[in-house]
């Protein structure tokens, strides 16, 4: 079943067409990737899919509901979570608290309930704390729970952002270049985490530059070039697609990457 439907989405900045008539589906339970060279429109598309930006034309629907023009907090509540290319962590909060903050949209305690410490808010707070610990274990950060995010090693910051995104209990997790700046070992542990997340029933869409990760984890890949979709299919076919090789990598051979 198609969880996310992208239909004829276009976006222009001045005279430049950043995204040009792009359509594809993300099916429930899959790991899908959008790749493309720098300037292919990946980030613009990503921001449209997470409602941080709106398209000039086209439609994006999530589970049958149009999400274009909705405020980001409603998109999160609907079940779409995201990470950022440049991690947006709460630096002064502990790793554990960062993940707890992610549960904001799926918890209810308001100002008055919390100020008066009503029993149900205390119970909710305890549940959030436990859930956050489980998610830290899932991404392998349980030992860092009390460390301020600012002191977390660079390679682990992405994992924390993923755990925080999972705390929103998403049905679809969108990752913006999750492998950027990671070394081989870190990329491998990221891939492991992605499998575990998919196996819990969360659909994943990755927008990525790093071919290694995408070729390994994706069920299907969409290739963008200069804003337009030039290919779509499983990694094996994408790797051999002449249009992709020509446009995306020029003279290089995909197999070498």
């Amino acid at each position, binding site marked *: 079943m198609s969880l996310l439907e992208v239909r004829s989405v276009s976006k222009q900045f001045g005279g430049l067409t950043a995204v040009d008539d792009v359509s594809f589906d993300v099916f429930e339970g899959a790991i899908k990737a959008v790749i493309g060279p720098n300037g292919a429109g990946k980030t613009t598309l990503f921001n449209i899919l*997470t409602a*941080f930006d709106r398209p000039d034309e086209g439609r994006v629907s999530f589970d049958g509901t149009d999400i274009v023009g909705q*405020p*980001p*907090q409603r998109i*999160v*509540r609907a079940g779409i*979570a*995201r*990470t*950022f290319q440049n991690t*947006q*962590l*709460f*630096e*002064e*909060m*502990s790793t*554990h*608290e960062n993940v*707890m*903050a*992610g*549960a*904001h*949209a*799926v*918890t209810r*305690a*308001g*100002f008055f309930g*919390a*100020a*008066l*410490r009503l029993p149900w*808010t205390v119970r*909710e*707070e305890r549940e*959030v*704390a436990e859930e956050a610990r489980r998610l830290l274990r899932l991404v392998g950060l349980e030992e860092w729970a*009390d460390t301020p995010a600012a002191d977390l090693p660079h390679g682990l910051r992405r994992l924390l952002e993923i755990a*925080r*995104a999972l*705390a*929103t209990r998403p049905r679809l997790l969108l990752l913006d270049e999750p492998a950027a700046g990671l070394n081989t070992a870190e990329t491998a542990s990221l891939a492991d985490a992605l499998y575990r997340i998919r196996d819990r029933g969360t659909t994943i869409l990755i927008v990525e530059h790093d071919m290694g990760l995408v070729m390994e984890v994706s069920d299907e890949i969409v290739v963008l070039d200069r804003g337009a979709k030039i290919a779509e299919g499983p990694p094996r076919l994408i790797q051999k697609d002449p249009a992709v090789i020509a446009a995306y990598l020029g003279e290089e051979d995909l197999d070498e990457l």
Partner: protein
Amino acid sequence: MGERTIDIRTVAVLALVGALVFAVPLLTADRYLLKVLTFVGINVIIITGMALLFGYAGQVSLGHAAFYGIGAYTSAYVVTSLGWPWLGGVALAVAVTSVGGLLLALPSLRLKGHYLAMATLGFGEIMRVVFVEARGITGGPDGFSGIPFASVGGLAIDSAGANYWLIWGVAAAMLALAANLVRSRAGRAMRALHGSELGALACGIDLTGLKVRVFVISAALAGLAGALYAHVVGFISPSTFSLHASVVLVAMAVLGGTRSLAGPVLAAALLTLIPFADAVIPGLSRSALETIQEWQEDIYGLTIIAVLLFVPGGVAGALRRLSRVGRRWG
């Protein structure tokens, strides 16, 4: 759980400080000292709201003295001129300042940038003129006098000691509520908003809604403090609620440091006591006090600059370092 846990040492320190604060009227009959410390309590109530607004939600208001004034005049007018009971006057003051805060925050917080600071600056100036010109209600530049003491039922709170307990009781209650709040989902959302707006959006936090709520709470606390103040002193005039007072409130919040309630509370106590130094320093000569009062603004300014330069994190930062050292040696 890191800083979320309140350890036994913190509880002990809080209990000790609380007991000391509440014992003051038993230890001294000095009415002047009690009055000055009552002012400290009133400023603690305002600064609790400022600490939430500035230190947790990262928003600057240059007009909180206006809410303080609105609260004071509202309760003074309905109790003195219309014969409302004291509690009704205080409740109306809180209601009026909450609505005022909402009306000011909604349009200015929808916009990105420093519109809130500008809007509050303008609002403060408008209210200053209103306090002077709306003579029928405020008494104009001569002020509003003859405001009765607080009373509940037939019980009048008319001694210096009783007023002290009333104010500090309310201040302690507000601090306790705020302390709960900052350790909750809402407090986490505030710190998140302060840390990264994009990150907060990705957590599904309604940034505008959150900022508006915190602003309304801070306006209501200033209104509450104003209403209490009016009945403690019996006389209010526009100069108390000027831009200068708003700036002093911001100074207290900045000096106190972010992500802390204790820091701003101590900073508020310190800055409130400076012009009344003779109340807490026995034997301070008249001329020394006059010098302090004349140089009050400069002392404030220099204190803030010194803290910003030499004490990272303000009073809150110093407290955090102190508690770390205490833990190491304890």
